[in-house]
């Protein structure tokens, strides 16, 4: 930090990381941060500390009905807008977060050109859930015929002897799979494959692991009943880096 601008910026980095800097300080600091990697790194470190601090805030039970209202709104919003993440079978882990470098501030994703076909997974269930104040999802199957999300299977993603994540496969009219990886798998791009009972291998998509970690969700061709296991394959070498058993127990 030899640039005098760095020391000016350093004065406000903590406030910036805590999200409480005033508008002018913020504007001038951001202008400097655009061109100074050292200060950006500093802000990032302080931002992580600030986020951890915020997470110490004591929990408080929200008013009655809060959870149901939130779930109802989320499902309504989901059905009102296409979900970029669902349909994209490409890298879903966003890397190199743009913006202030502060972890908790996702920039609005409006600029992205990713809005393909709408895939309402569970419109009926969602509508019923909203009508019943969102507790209704548990009842919607009985009430409205076929439930899109009939069953869910989860399996621990294992590499060697280590658990490196989790796979969730949701069956139904529009099956989907979610994969969370948090262990070091030592690869960047991975292909997620589902091995079906008959031995056929279906590729779900290719995803980027940032430093070995990432999570994503994508449409799957078949639900849990037909899938034996999920594989993560190094996209370059074709080597299997982790797998999860998904045999349904029933």
């Amino acid at each position, binding site marked *: 930090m030899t640039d005098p601008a760095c020391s000016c910026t350093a004065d406000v980095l903590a406030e910036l990381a805590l999200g409480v800097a005033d508008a002018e300080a913020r504007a001038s600091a951001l202008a400097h941060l655009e061109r100074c990697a050292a200060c950006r790194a500093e802000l990032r470190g302080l931002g992580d500390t600030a986020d951890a601090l915020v997470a110490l805030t004591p929990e408080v039970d929200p008013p009655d009905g*809060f959870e149901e209202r939130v779930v109802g709104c989320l499902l309504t919003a989901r059905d009102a807008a296409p979900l970029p993440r669902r349909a994209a079978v490409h890298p879903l882990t966003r890397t190199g977060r743009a913006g202030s470098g502060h972890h908790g501030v996702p920039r609005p994703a409006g600029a992205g050109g990713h809005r393909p076909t709408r895939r309402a997974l569970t419109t009926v269930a969602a509508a019923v859930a909203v009508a019943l104040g969102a507790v209704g999802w548990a009842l919607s199957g009985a009430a409205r015929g076929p439930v899109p999300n009939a069953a869910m299977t989860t399996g621990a993603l294992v590499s060697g002897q280590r658990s490196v994540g989790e796979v969730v496969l949701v069956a139904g009219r529009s099956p989907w799979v979610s994969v969370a990886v948090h262990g070091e798998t030592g690869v960047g791009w991975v292909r997620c494959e589902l091995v079906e009972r008959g031995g056929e291998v279906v590729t779900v998509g290719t995803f980027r692991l940032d430093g070995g970690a990432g999570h994503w969700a994508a449409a799957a061709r078949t639900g849990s009943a037909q899938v034996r296991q999920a594989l993560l394959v190094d996209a370059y070498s074709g080597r299997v880096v982790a797998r999860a058993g998904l045999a349904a127990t029933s």
Partner: protein
Amino acid sequence: MSLTATAAVTCDVRRTGPPVDQLNDEALLAGLGAGDPDLTAAFVRRFASKVYGVALAVLGDPAAAEDVAQMAFERAWRHSSSYDPRRATVGTWLAAITRNLAIDAARVRRPCPVDPETLLGVVAPTREGTEARAVAGEAAADLRAALRRLPPEQARAVVLAGLAGLSASQVAAAEGIPIGTAKTRIRSALTRLRRILADSGGDGD
């Protein structure tokens, strides 16, 4: 490479029972992002008190806190793919989202100042009873210990800025100190917290 297939858990969502509640935070977040109703409900259930608590700490007004908490869940849904498990737990990420929204909302309207004493309890040694509502986890315990190692006036300043979302000038007013002093305290405190945490090996998170 010997890869062990582990026992899978199957659950039928038509049963109201918990299995989804046994999924880890990342899996629930992925489910939220994908718009799954069951996982969305489980996610909201798991984090409602945390999100509401953060919003309330900044806003001090239950109705406003509820609005912001709801917005925070919506933002988490829209941006679930930007979550980075190496940098923070899901809870920490969600708390940060909530707090940023709450600060934005507080800029527009801060009806009554937050009672700082409630929040400053975070710095105080944990008592019986508070423990239950305090945030669990080793990282949180490390951070609370780190806060107690700061000079008390610094700890107060960083908690007021960090948890209540007060700006330096608001901290100055609340503490009856010049603004320059408030800025210095906030800055020193956060920098030291970071260093203490790094030294204790709890890097990141």
